[in-house]
């Protein structure tokens, strides 16, 4: 035994003693290099420990116990990182390097030991909380890299599945060698997680491969990376010679892989691809007829015998199988059988010189036939694919630069080249290229062009399922929902097992608003493909869209239980909780989603939205600003920020934010309307009208702008014009309740309250939707105006009891306060107000109104001067209420309050009703 081996022996004995004594401190010291032999400067402490573990006899128990002992050390690091983060930055500087080296060694050891649940928990805990620890990033981030590998190797459950997939899916990461390493690590993370031999065990790997393909396909070295990934797949799950086991496992998936991935796989495992017809000898017409009449699987089997030169097997197959399952030639069975035997002789001539008689007549065929047996010309498919991939990348680059003309020329050249290729299956490949190009141009918004390419692809290969699917998808994207539906139905009829088409059909039905049909289709898809995650989510989505929020929530929860890493379901659940008004639960779910998928922009946006809805406007604003900082291009967050500013009454800031959003996203309809809204709120009614008119001119189908215009006309007192605009809107969007409510209000203002009430008949159903409740609310207000206060009170009480969404509940409560003020019942009104927040303008106005009615001058003046100070935050409706109260109760002067006459009271109530109806 040499000195180095002896040194490792000593380390091994040391480890055994340490484990015997449960001496974790000793392990910590060892990982810091203390007490280890000086074997070499480039051998890390963890490497020495690993070497010592591996010297014979290998003892798996020892390794397991070491894994168990390593867990608390990792956990300790997590805590230490947490503490460090809490301290000021300067105090951290000292131990960076040592931390980094220790962490590296700790994770290196963890990566090598057998899997241990407590160790994985500890690593995961560190990963979640300490991923930005300074020690990880030092020395080229080697500790971070090692942490990733330790996480991968130690996985005892699938909680990281979403993370690996997320890394594979990230299209925004900079393309460099670190990224490529990360991709390969993430791929191994999935490989190490899966047991492909289980039922559907290959599904996660299939998702991972497709994600990897989409990320790398157009990148330099993308082909090599895919090849490497597939190679690792084979290494991770070694199977029999020729990888037959693996081939069997992946063939069903392989069939639908994108071309580059598919071809890369078949270049590694030729057995995946059915032997091409090129391996067949040319056949005389009589035998060709026999060949064509065979079923595809029979052709494939025969070709397998031909390509392996297994004459014996081939003859046996023809004589024992095909002779009893004769092809349909329209000939007597005996004649058909004779021709089959001729085919057999043609394929496997028994002896040289004995030529089958059917072929003697045509010696030319023989020569051609022999040529057919010559070794196949091997095309370097890998190189060809890489070239194709680069050509498509060049086209994409041109499109990205806006150089459509050059992109079109490049594509035309590429297609021409493919048409000229001397391959027997060139049309098949051409169709695939066209489909792929269609995907690219579609990605750049050229939907018509994509449609044209896909139609060409289908002409080149009418059996190209991908092109047919793509065409349906592009039609859907073009908004040609009827055509898309027809295409999907056509695809389903042709390829009844096409899950994508079935999903697409359901999606298009959903998009057409045929929610019942969509639901049926989704349910149908789920019944057929019980593991169809997309359909299960689609169903949940459609239930949500139908307002079946309880069912939707149940479906999302069910999906999450089945696919715990399903981000879409988790997001959907949060959304549905938000829609149900379960804002606390929604907030928790969003926060949970953000913790699990830190890059989930939608969850971050959802959280901000829910905070906004809960009225936590400061927190919402902070969350929106945070989102904007992380995703500077997040239009939704920018819009949300503007909205929350508007709601907070920060009208100047809101206007600035909307203008900023419009400048950045000139096509942002929401921002344009938001700007008009904020102008209206600021009382800049002329500017608001102009903005709405501008918006209507740009987006003639914009319901919000059309209603906004009507609202602003009403606010300007142009009641006739406003009524006309509302009526116009109702004609176009008969189901728009906001318009109907607006019209009702304008009619009310014109004194036609009864007409207005006709627009809003009292709903008698037991189950009321949100919209029904809004109608109910407006009707109650009209009844207040008519003086039918008892009816109004009943409606408001009823609505308040049913409404679940907090916003709606507040509407009813405010209206009850308004009613009580109208009835001069200021005690009751103030009691209600006492339980409500004191930072909401409308409530402050009601408080002012109540205090003035109660002749509590000091309180009234305090509220008045606060509102004056907040004047900038008051929208025009609120300001009008303040003005009317100020006039009615003589708040301008300082010589006591006056009692308003009936006209002044009516003006106050009118303004309050406007304010409520605008809320």
């Amino acid at each position, binding site marked *: 035994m040499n000195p180095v081996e002896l040194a490792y022996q000593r380390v091994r004995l040391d480890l055994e003693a340490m484990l015997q004594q449960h001496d974790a401190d000793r392990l910590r010291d060892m990982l810091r290099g203390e007490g280890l032999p000086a074997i070499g400067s480039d051998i890390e402490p963890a490497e020495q420990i690993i070497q010592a573990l591996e010297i014979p006899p290998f003892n798996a*128990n020892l390794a397991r116990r070491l894994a168990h002992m390593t867990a608390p050390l990792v956990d300790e690091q997590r805590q230490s990182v947490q503490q460090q983060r809490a301290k000021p930055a300067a105090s951290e500087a000292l131990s960076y390097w040592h931390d980094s080296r220790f962490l590296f060694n700790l994770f290196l050891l963890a990566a090598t030991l057998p899997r241990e649940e407590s160790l994985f928990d500890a690593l995961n805990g560190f990963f979640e909380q300490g991923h930005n620890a300074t020690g990880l990033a030092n020395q080229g981030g080697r500790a971070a890299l090692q942490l990733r590998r330790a996480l991968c190797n130690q996985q005892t459950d699938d909680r990281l599945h979403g993370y690996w997939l997320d890394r594979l899916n990230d299209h925004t990461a900079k393309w460099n060698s670190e990224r490529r390493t990360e991709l390969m690590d993430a791929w191994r993370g999935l490989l190490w997680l899966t047991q492909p031999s289980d039922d559907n065990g290959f599904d996660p790997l299939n998702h991972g491969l497709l994600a990897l393909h989409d990320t790398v396909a157009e990148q330099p070295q993308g082909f090599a990376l895919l090849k490497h990934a597939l190679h690792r797949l084979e290494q991770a799950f070694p199977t029999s*010679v020729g990888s037959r086991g693996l081939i069997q496992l992946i063939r069903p998936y392989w069939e639908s892989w994108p071309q580059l991935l598919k071809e890369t796989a078949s270049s590694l495992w030729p057995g995946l691809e059915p032997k091409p017809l090129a391996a067949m000898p040319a056949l005389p017409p009589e035998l060709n007829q026999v060949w064509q009449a065979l079923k595809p699987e029979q052709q494939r089997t025969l070709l397998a015998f031909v390509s392996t030169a297994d004459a014996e097997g081939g003859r046996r197959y023809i004589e024992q199988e095909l002779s009893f399952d004769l092809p349909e030639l329209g000939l007597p069975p005996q004649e058909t059988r004779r021709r089959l035997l001729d085919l057999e002789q043609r394929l496997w001539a028994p002896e040289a010189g004995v030529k089958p008689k059917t072929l003697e007549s045509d010696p030319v065929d023989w020569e051609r036939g022999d040529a057919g047996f010559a070794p196949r010309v091997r095309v370097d498919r890998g190189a060809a694919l890489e070239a194709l991939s680069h050509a498509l990348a060049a086209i994409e680059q041109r499109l990205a630069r806006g150089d459509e003309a050059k992109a079109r020329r490049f594509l035309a050249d590429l297609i021409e080249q493919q048409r000229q290729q001397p391959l027997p299956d060139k049309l098949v490949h051409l169709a695939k290229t066209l489909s792929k190009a269609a995907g690219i141009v579609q990605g750049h918004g050229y939907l018509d062009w994509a449609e044209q390419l896909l139609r060409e692809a289908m002409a080149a290969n009418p059996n190209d399922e991908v092109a047919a699917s793509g065409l349906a998808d592009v039609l859907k994207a073009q908004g040609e929902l009827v055509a898309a539906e027809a295409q999907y139905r056509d695809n389903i009829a042709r390829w009844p097992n096409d899950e994508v088409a079935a999903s697409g059909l359901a999606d298009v039905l959903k998009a057409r608003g045929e929610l019942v049909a969509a639901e049926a289709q989704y349910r149908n898809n789920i019944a057929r493909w019980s593991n169809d995650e997309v359909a299960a989510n689609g169903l949940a989505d459609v239930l949500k869209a139908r307002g079946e929020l309880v069912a939707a929530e149940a479906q999302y929860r069910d999906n999450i239980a089945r696919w715990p890493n399903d981000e879409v379901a988790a997001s959907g659940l949060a959304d549905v909780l938000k829609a149900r008004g379960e804002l606390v639960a929604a907030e928790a779910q969003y926060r949970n989603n953000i913790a699990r998928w830190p890059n989930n922009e939608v969850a971050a946006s959802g959280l901000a939205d829910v905070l906004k809805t809960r009225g936590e406007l400061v927190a919402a604003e902070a969350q929106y600003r945070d989102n904007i900082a992380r995703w500077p291009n997040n239009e939704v967050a920018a819009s949300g920020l503007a909205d929350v500013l508007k709601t907070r009454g920060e009208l100047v800031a809101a206007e600035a934010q909307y203008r900023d959003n419009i400048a950045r996203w000139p096509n942002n309809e929401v921002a344009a309307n938001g700007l008009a809204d904020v102008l209206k709120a600021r009382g800049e009614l002329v500017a608001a009208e102009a903005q709405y008119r501008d918006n209507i001119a740009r987006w003639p189908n914009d319901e919000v702008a059309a209603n906004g215009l009507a609202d602003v006309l009403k606010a300007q007192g142009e009641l006739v014009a406003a009524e006309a605009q509302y009526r116009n809107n109702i004609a176009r969007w008969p189901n728009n309740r906001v318009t109907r409510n607006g019209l009702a209000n304008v009619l009310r203002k014109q004194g036609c309250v009864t007409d207005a009430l006709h627009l809003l008949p009292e709903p008698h159903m037991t189950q009321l939707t949100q919209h029904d409740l809004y109608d109910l609310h407006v009707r109650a207000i009209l009844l207040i105006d008519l003086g039918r206060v008892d009816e109004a009170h009943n409606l408001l009480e009823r609505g308040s009891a049913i409404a679940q969404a907090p916003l709606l509940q507040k509407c009813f409560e405010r209206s009850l306060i308004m009613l009580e003020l109208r009835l001069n019942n200021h005690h009751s009104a103030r009691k209600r107000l006492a339980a409500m927040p004191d930072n909401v303008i409308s409530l402050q106005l009601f408080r002012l109104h109540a205090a003035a009615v109660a002749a509590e001058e000091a309180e009234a003046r305090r509220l008045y001067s606060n509102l004056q100070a907040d004047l900038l935050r008051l929208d025009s409706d609120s300001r009008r209420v303040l003005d009317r109260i100020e006039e009615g109760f003589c708040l301008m002067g300082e010589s006591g309050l006056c009692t308003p006459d009936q006209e002044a009271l009516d003006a106050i109530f009118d303004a309050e009703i406007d304010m409520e109806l605008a809320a």
Partner: protein
Amino acid sequence: MEQINKHPYIFDRRRHSHPWESSLRRLQSDNHPENTALAQNWRMDHRVSEHREDELSTSDIFPNPRNPTTDFSRAIRDYFQIRLCIPAGTDGSTAPTYTIEANRHNRIAREQISPNQPLVHMVSLNAVLPRILHDFDTQDALHRLTGEYPPEPEDLTIAHVETIAGTLQARGEDAIREFAGLLSDQLGPTEPHWWAAFAFELDDYLLDDDWTKASRVLGLGHLRQGQWLIAWRYSPELAGPLYRPTVAEVGLNGHHFPSPPGENLGITMPLEATLPAVKEVVHAPLKGDISVEACMGRLGRIAQPLITTHTTRQTEWLALRREKHAAQLREHYEQQAVGNWLTRHGLNR
């Protein structure tokens, strides 16, 4: 030293002369077909590096200029016993030679095989029982497990093994696992390395208790009909370092066939052409609790003849099987290097 003309390869390296040539040639021309195959394997196994060859040459076991006539099959057996099954480890003795630096290139990278691709190892009770029965404690433990004292090793018959296996099976999984632990303990540090294949490829053949097909797939031609087998199923992470096997680890089993160049695992030569050749590795035996835990808790029997031959004489069967296997390798790998290697060693299509 003899000039080499007719069979110029040892470990797939062409030689002008070699101290083993004469002995190897005698082994090859032996009438016993397994010896011929054995010699062929030592000639063609490219997996044995020059360093490993040096280690073999300097072991004083194989023919050398001082003992040029050493019997090669005896040398193989001695090497297996002395250099692979000797006590090894913390007492300062030499480690099994497949784990030494000279065989490093056959080590399978730690991060190559998924921990979720379990391995299966099988052992013949008929072969292993005689090795442990000399010990009183073992006899006592077997009495406890089966209710009967086993015979002395030299008196052990197939019928005894039948009885022991039958009783263990009747007592259930725990008894079988306990027996696995007993085997492991009693074989102790002299237990040879384990040969293991991947469960994914064997599970289908282990569904009932007739393990004939599994044995055929694994190429266990040295076993016989009627023998009983015990098996372990475990994650590769518990096996420690995995190695691609070479002829040096095979011992006297002529049913081995080296895996081709470029293949970084071993490949079995199934005993029947219709069965797939599967990948295999060698590693240190599982010991202690892990051996008990990983035992499948079932026994299987080789219920049918392992080798069935109708058309050829038994003596020719192995040569034909090797040729067919070579043809299969050639076809499946579709690589020039594999074709050339087989051609070099006379295994033309």
